[in-house]
C-alpha cells in the first residue's frame, strides 16, 4: 500500500501540515524536539488509531486547542482509501472519532485499513526487556491484521477486570458468576492464543531465515511462543482445554490471592540463540541482531497476510545501529514499497534519497 497524503491539524507541535508522500523511502531529518517523531506518531495513528508513545492522548492535541486531527489518503490493492482520526478534549476527557472513506466508523472498523509496522528505539529492548513489551509486539501486529483479534482482546481484558474485581470482593462472592467469567476468558483467550501461536510460527520462520543470512549460518535464532497454558497442538479445542485446565488447577490460588493468575495476559516469547536464552546469555550485539530479525519478520508476515506491504515507520532507529547492521536490516526487509524514516542526520546504511527537513513543526524539502 502507498500513502499519498497525510494532513495534520493541531497535532502535537504541528498547527497544520500537509505532506505528499513519495513511494520508496521518505526521510525526515531534524534536530531533537522539532517534531519528527510527532510526524511518525501521526503516520502510525493512520493505521492503529493509537499513539505508540503515550496513553495520555491529551498530549496529542496542540496546546490550548480543543481538537486535533490526522487524516490520510492511500492507494491500496482494492483502490483508494481515506482515513481520519479526530481527537477532541471534552468535558469528560478525551474522545476520538474515526472516519473511513468519509463515513464515521467504530474503532474496530477503522483499524487495519492502513497497516503500519513501526520500529521505535524502545523496541530495541524487545529481547531483554519485560514480557509486556513482547506481548505488545504481538498485540499491535495482530490487532491490525484481524479486527476479530482486537475484539477478542478488548473483551478478554474487560472480563479479566470484572473477574479481578469479583475476586477482590467488590461485590458478594458468587461461584456462578466466577464460572461465567472463566467461560468468557476461555472463549476469548483461546482466540488470542490461537492467533498468537500462528503469528509466532510465521515470525519464527522469517526471523530464523534472515538471521541465518546475516550470520552466515553461524548462529541459529529460534522464536517460540510460550503461552501461560502450554499446549502441544495449535487447535482451538486443544488451546481451550489447556486454558480451562490451567484455570481449574489455579482456582484455589486465585481465590487465596484475590487476583486472576492465569491466561494470555501472562504469555511470553522465548528467544533462543543456538538453544540458549538470548535474554540471559546473549551479548548486547546478539540481542540487537535478534530484535532486527524480529522486526524484519513482522514486516514480512504482515506483507504476506494482507497481500501488500504495510507502511514501514522507523523512528530514529537506524542512527542507533552501526552501518553494517543498518544496511543489513534494510536489505533484509526486501523491497520496501514505502517507508518513513526519521533521523538527526543521514543515517548509516542508506544511499541518497528525497529528504525533508523538520524545523519547529514546519517541513522543508531538501535540494
Amino acid at each position, binding site marked *: 500500500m502507498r500513502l499519498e497524503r497525510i494532513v495534520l491539524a493541531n497535532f502535537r507541535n504541528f498547527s497544520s501540515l500537509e505532506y505528499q508522500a513519495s513511494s520508496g523511502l521518505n526521510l525526515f531529518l531534524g534536530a531533537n524536539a522539532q517534531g519528527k517523531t510527532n510526524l511518525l506518531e501521526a503516520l502510525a495513528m493512520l493505521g492503529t488509531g493509537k499513539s505508540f508513545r503515550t496513553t495520555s492522548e491529551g498530549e496529542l492535541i496542540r496546546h490550548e486547542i480543543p481538537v486535533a486531527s490526522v487524516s490520510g489518503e492511500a492507494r491500496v490493492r482494492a483502490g483508494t482509501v481515506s482515513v481520519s482520526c479526530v481527537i477532541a478534549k*471534552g*468535558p469528560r476527557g478525551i474522545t476520538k472519532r474515526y472516519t473511513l472513506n468519509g463515513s464515521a466508523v*467504530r474503532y*474496530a472498523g477503522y483499524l487495519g485499513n492502513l497497516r503500519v509496522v513501526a520500529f521505535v528505539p524502545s523496541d530495541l529492548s524487545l529481547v531483554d526487556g519485560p514480557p509486556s513489551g513482547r506481548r505488545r509486539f504481538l498485540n499491535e501486529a495482530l490487532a491490525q491484521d484481524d479486527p476479530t483479534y482486537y*475484539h477478542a482482546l478488548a*473483551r478478554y481484558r*474487560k*472480563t479479566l*477486570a*470484572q*473477574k479481578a*474485581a*469479583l475476586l*477482590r470482593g*467488590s*461485590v*458478594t462472592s*458468587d461461584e*456462578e*458468576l466466577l464460572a*461465567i*467469567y472463566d*467461560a*468468557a476468558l476461555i472463549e476469548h483467550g483461546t482466540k488470542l492464543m490461537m492467533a498468537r501461536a500462528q503469528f509466532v510460527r510465521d515470525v519464527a520462520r522469517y526471523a530464523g531465515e534472515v538471521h541465518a543470512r546475516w550470520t552466515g549460518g553461524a548462529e541459529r535464532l529460534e522464536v517460540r511462543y510460550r503461552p501461560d497454558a502450554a499446549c502441544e497442538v495449535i487447535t482451538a479445542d486443544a488451546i481451550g482445554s489447556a486454558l480451562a485446565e490451567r484455570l481449574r488447577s489455579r482456582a484455589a490460588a486465585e481465590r487465596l490471592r484475590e487476583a486472576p493468575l492465569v491466561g494470555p495476559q501472562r504469555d511470553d516469547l522465548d528467544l533462543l540463540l543456538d538453544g540458549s536464552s538470548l535474554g540471559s546469555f546473549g551479548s548486547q550485539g546478539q540481542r540487537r541482531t535478534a530484535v532486527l530479525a524480529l522486526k524484519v519478520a513482522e514486516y514480512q508476515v504482515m506483507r504476506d497476510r494482507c497481500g501488500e506491504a504495510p507502511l514501514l515507520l522507523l523512528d530514529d532507529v537506524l542512527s542507533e545501529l552501526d552501518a553494517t547492521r543498518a544496511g543489513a536490516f534494510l536489505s533484509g526487509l526486501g523491497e520496501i514499497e514505502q517507508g518513513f524514516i526519521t533521523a538527526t542526520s543521514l543515517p548509516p546504511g542508506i544511499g541518497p534519497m528525497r529528504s525533508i527537513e523538520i524545523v519547529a513543526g514546519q517541513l522543508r524539502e531538501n535540494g
Partner: protein
Amino acid sequence: MSGTLAQPVAALINEFSKLPTIGPKTAARLVFHLLNRPRHEAQALADAIMAMKDKVRFCTSCFSLTENDPCAICSDDRRDAQTFCVVAEAKDIFAIERADIYRGRYHVLCGLISPMDGVGPADLRVKELLERIGRERPTEIIIATNPNAEGEATAMYLSRLLTPLGPRITRLASGLPIGGDLDYADEVTIARALEGRRTMDH
C-alpha cells in the same frame, strides 16, 4: 467564562452541562436560547421536569418507569403475559417498543452485573424477577441485554439461573452489531434481532 456571566445564567449552564452528551458549549447555547424565549415556555420546561420527578416511579411489577402502577404495559390485557423480555434499563423498552413487533411484557433489571462498578447480581432486580416467574409462570423469557461484555455476562448468569425454573430462555442475537447498543439500533435491526432470537446454550 463563568466569572463574567450573571450568576443564574452560569448556574443553569453548569446544570445543563452535567447532562449526558452536553458539553459547556451546547449548555451555553441552550441557556441563551431559553433566555430569548417567553416566560411561559421556560415555565413549561421547568414544570415538565418537576412533574417527571414527582409523578414517575417504578412499576412494582416490571420496574419500568410509570405514572400509574402497574404500568401501561403490565396492565394491558391484550399483551402476551406468557413472554417476558428482560432489559437492563427502562430506556431499552422504548427502543424495542419503537420497532412495534414485540407483544409481551418486560422486566427491567435496573443495571448490568459489573463488579468493577460494585454491581453484583444482588444489586439488580433479579430476586423480583424470580418471584415474578413463580407468580406469573411465563413460558418464554427473552434476554435483551446489550451484546457487550457486561450484557453477555448478565445474560449468561440469568440463563443459568432461570433455565431450571422451566421457561424457554432466548437471547437477542443476530442483527445487533458487535459492540452495538440497543439504544442506537434502528427499528429494522431490533425487529430482526427479535425474530432471530436463539435459545441460550451454557
